[in-house]
């Protein structure tokens, strides 16, 4: 019986070793070799000493933070409203639908919309404003990244709000709280698990966004993702690219630890 159960894990374990553990080990291994294939700590030295890489890391965090923040600001009220609508399933479907479309296709669509002769500028000229450079700006990058990430934030928050026992809300009113106090003291704290998973699902991928930085951000926004791509494909310095990869993995693990479920004791005051 026990053996049987173990058998079910074989395909996944195989997958895990081949596509998760082995690549991570390879990245760590390669990060200790410089461009001339010498075993060295040079790459790590470069990472910390040349200001560019540290600045890139900070940049990545900053943009990932902004994307997560905007996504959250839009998604929480949306998820909250969704739980109160009549045709929840339909609305959910409409929100999930865009995630089924290839990311690249959506990026190209936005290039069309934001270009000098695009829909956005047509609208501006209709309003009597001269065409603006919209594409290849920080704002357009943030806009598109936020647009793409929104469903991944809405879903976990929506689920957390749906699971909320309605009698808790009645109890809060019963004890004298108004709608705002009920939201602040009961609804929001109990939906935090959803917010945390949403933040994880948005912040971590945002750290290494590189395609959008190029297509929409016009390489004005340089993140760790961009740097890795450049090192592997352009300068062919795989060692340095791997080193940055190691830092990216560390950053992801840290984010997961920070937003993960902590065993709480006692109350939130």
């Amino acid at each position, binding site marked *: 019986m026990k053996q049987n159960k173990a058998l079910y894990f074989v395909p996944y374990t195989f997958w895990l070793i081949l596509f998760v553990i082995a690549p991570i080990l390879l990245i760590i291994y390669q990060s200790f070799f410089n461009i001339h294939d010498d075993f060295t700590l040079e790459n790590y030295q470069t990472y910390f000493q040349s200001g560019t890489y540290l600045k890139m890391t900070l940049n990545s965090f900053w943009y990932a933070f902004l994307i997560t923040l905007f996504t959250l600001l839009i998604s929480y009220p949306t998820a909250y409203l969704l739980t109160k609508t009549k045709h929840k399933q339909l609305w959910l479907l409409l929100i999930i639908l865009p995630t089924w479309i290839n990311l690249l296709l959506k990026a190209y669509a936005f290039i069309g919309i934001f270009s000098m002769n695009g829909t956005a500028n047509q609208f501006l000229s209709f309003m009597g404003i001269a065409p603006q450079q919209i594409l290849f700006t920080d704002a357009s990058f943030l806009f598109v990244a936020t647009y793409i990430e929104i469903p991944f934030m809405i879903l976990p928050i929506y689920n957390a709000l749906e699971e909320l026992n309605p009698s808790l809300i*009645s109890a*809060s*009113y019963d004890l004298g*709280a108004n709608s705002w106090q009920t939201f602040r003291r009961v609804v929001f704290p109990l939906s935090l698990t959803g917010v945390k998973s949403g933040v994880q699902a948005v912040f971590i991928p945002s750290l290494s966004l590189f395609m959008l930085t190029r297509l929409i951000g016009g390489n004005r926004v340089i993140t760790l993702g961009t740097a890795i791509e450049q090192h592997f494909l352009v300068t062919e310095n795989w060692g340095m690219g791997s080193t940055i990869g190691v830092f990216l993995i560390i950053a992801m693990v840290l984010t997961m630890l920070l937003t993960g479920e902590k065993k709480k004791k006692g109350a939130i005051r």
Partner: protein
Amino acid sequence: MTGNAIIEFNHVKKQYDDNVILKDIDLEIERGKFYTLLGPSGCGKTTILNLVAGFTEATEGTITLNGKKVNDIPPNQRTVNTVFQDYALFPHMNVFENVAFGLRIKKMNKNVIKEKVAEVLKMVQLSGYEERGISEMSGGQRQRVAIARALVNEPDVLLLDEPLSALDLKLRTDMQYELRELQQRLGITFIFVTHDQEEALAMSDIIFVMKEGEIVQSGTPVDIYDEPINRYVADFIGESNIVKGTMIQDYEVSFVGHTFECVDAGMRPNEKVEVVLRPEDLVLTSVEKGKLTVQVDTQLFRGVHYEIIGYDRDGNEWMVHSTKKAKVGSEVGLYFEPEDIHVMRFGESEQEFDARLESYEEE
């Protein structure tokens, strides 16, 4: 109306679309008493509670609390608190914070909150549990936290929505004593909703028996038990033997082919009625001494008594609770006193019933 009424329902009606939940409810709740709304699920008892708490609005009629109309007052501005069926304790707060919730909303001084919470936790015997998480508490303890959380706000009325239904039998019986005792000590009006007639009989000052959105009968547990207004109430409250009979004249009723002396009056001569005899009022005796003769069909040992089912010659079923054993298959006599016979008229309303009782009891 009397000055002691704290809640009044005046022709209150509640319906969702075409679905009528409550039809024309009139009731008056007096200060400091233990009330029970008793009925099967779907009879509208929880709806009455929700109307008092303010979670639903009446379709018609007025509800007053402390003499003020409260139809449009939201629940957070009413001086009533609720103990919910699933307790509805906040899972992200510990026991202290749960109980302190209402006081914090009122922005009370921290030291006062501490004092009040400690006091009310002591009252429900949970001192020392302040820092516990809700998930660490047992069902009975959660129940007490829920009661403490409601009582700490010093409500005019405490509403309890089937709070004992999730507890096991032993704990439920203990909590019945505790709730009753708590209510008498605090002097707060309790409105308790249940479908359990034993619970209702044990704890209440006044019981409202409900059926399909109407109050069928209201009164003290003893009144309702002894003088059920109709078959529904007799069946719902306690065990009963109900047979068809005829009221020959005042204080004389005939059923199963015999005429018996009874204590009921005020009906038309030869009116068709129903007669209730409680199983515990029937005494096993010899066939000669009995007023009725039945053949014992089955006998169950219930611990405190034997539950004996027998049939008379007309095929009517009789249930007897007796501490003495009977022999299955044998013929036994059943003896009862005139006051054990409860006569019920068909289709009598509560007002008519009360008026009739008064008319002949005064004589």
